[in-house]
């Protein structure tokens, strides 16, 4: 099977000797929606930095479209054109003086001309509702706006794979919903999206497959429903059960629905199941 991105025996330790990833083997298909979950310090962000070529693993390899990552500057530039990453804290991503300049950063690095960059900025700002903010200094943006600007800076580069490190972090419910909608739209466009999240309801509803990390090791890699029906694994990886699954299990126990009924991913599916 052809994978867009996969790792083989990936291990990574930081300079201070702290081991972050051990023998990580993952494989993600093109267009797949993958969630990487795990408690804080489990290695999610380190894995993402390895997938983007920022962290070079001490052992093992990362492959993009079947080819081993070339860590020469040219090779890394090529990889980063195709694999975009949105960091957890938008303040880490935004460094230009204005929103327009920040969104343009990646495009100009990729060699787009000013007019081409302007065209793309116009289009992405319309899509992310940033049109009125383009000339605003970045320090005046709200948390939600900063998140959308950081997303715009990566999305405008049109990478094939988009990695989002805890996209809902630092956001209120409304802004988080907006960001989740944007992530949905990316998947609908056929992009391969990889996210990390602590919002298990979102993961259940959105992801096709889940990778669970615990202390730098992959402890589960498979279908979302299979993970959330496995209480033992959830407890082992210190993960929450989604609300929908809790209700689903309760309804099975009370005999409202039959055991083995398809696992609902959201309220609508649960309602359908009860009917």
């Amino acid at each position: 099977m052809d994978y867009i991105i996969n790792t083989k025996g990936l291990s990574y330790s930081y300079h201070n000797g702290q081991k972050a990833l051990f023998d990580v083997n993952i494989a993600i298909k093109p267009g797949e929606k993958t969630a990487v979950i795990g408690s804080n310090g489990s290695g999610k962000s380190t894995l993402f930095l390895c997938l983007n070529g920022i962290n070079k693993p001490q052992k093992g390899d990362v492959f993009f479209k079947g080819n081993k990552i070339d860590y020469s500057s040219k090779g890394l530039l090529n990889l980063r054109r195709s694999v975009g990453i949105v960091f957890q804290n938008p303040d880490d991503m935004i460094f230009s003086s204005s929103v327009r300049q920040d969104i343009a950063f990646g495009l100009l690095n990729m060699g787009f001309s000013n007019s081409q960059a302007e065209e793309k900025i116009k289009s992405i700002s319309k899509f992310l509702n940033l049109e009125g903010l383009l000339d605003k200094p970045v320090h005046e943006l709200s948390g939600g706006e900063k998140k959308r600007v950081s997303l715009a800076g990566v999305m405008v580069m049109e990478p094939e794979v988009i990695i989002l490190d805890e996209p809902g972090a630092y956001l209120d419910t409304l802004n988080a919903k907006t960001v989740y909608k944007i992530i949905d739209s990316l998947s609908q466009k056929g992009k391969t999206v990889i996210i990390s999240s602590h919002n298990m309801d979102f993961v259940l509803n959105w992801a096709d497959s889940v990778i669970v990390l615990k202390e730098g090791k992959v402890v589960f890699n498979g279908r979302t429903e299979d993970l959330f029906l496995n209480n033992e694994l959830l407890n082992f990886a210190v993960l929450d059960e989604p609300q929908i699954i809790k209700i689903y299990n309760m309804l099975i126990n009370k005999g409202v629905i039959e055991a083995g009924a398809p696992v609902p991913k959201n309220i609508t599916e649960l309602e359908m199941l009860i009917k």
Partner: protein
Amino acid sequence: MINSVYITEYIKNVNPNIKTVFALSVILSCVIFKEPLGCIFAMSVMWALIIKNCRLSRHLICHIVLWPVLFIAFSSFMVAFDITNYKGEIFSFKIINSYFLTVNAQGAKKAIRLFFTSAASLSSMYFLSFTTPVNDVVYVLKTIKCPKEITELFMLIYRFIFIVLNMAHSIITAQNCRMAQRTFKTRINAMALMLSSVFVLSYNKSLFMYNAMLSRCYSGDINFLNEKYDNNRKHVLFAVVVVLVIVLISALERVF
């Protein structure tokens, strides 16, 4: 604070090179002639432009102008004084034996000239600061072929000012919640802790930011998007006329 001032689309679209050259020419003509009437005219034009094109509250104007003007006034006032062994024309105060603290006509004139020249230059700088957002400054730096490293450094320093201020503010708030201001000793201790934390945090922040830049194909150069500006001849003409009027008023004042 200056950065968040609303400026009209009209002045925003004026080529920043014209604005910069205009402000610098006004400063230069005021400094060369040092004639109060010329400086008063320059100040009037600059503040008229600021008030017309920037939405400033009275409070903000007072807040921004008060301290620099007081500083200029105090410094100029001091220039008027001299220590002599004879009595001054305007003012004299015996200090010791035959020495006097005096103010002569020449000293007073010098102080007045210094005050108006500084105030006019300050007004021009305010005009430039209010009407030229940081992107425009980058544009000007690029136009004068400033080394790229300086332009990049300027932009990153500008961004980090706000990041560091935010960090410091959060830390001070957290410290105050835990009675850091209780005594002089705790206050000093809290400040030292805050400064060291800000240093370490900003270093970490710069590492994260560098990673973010790398992930967006950064390869050593920060490229800037060229902004488009209105190169209207009227603006150039206006700037030339204002500078010529300042020169003319100053020259006439000097002659008569």
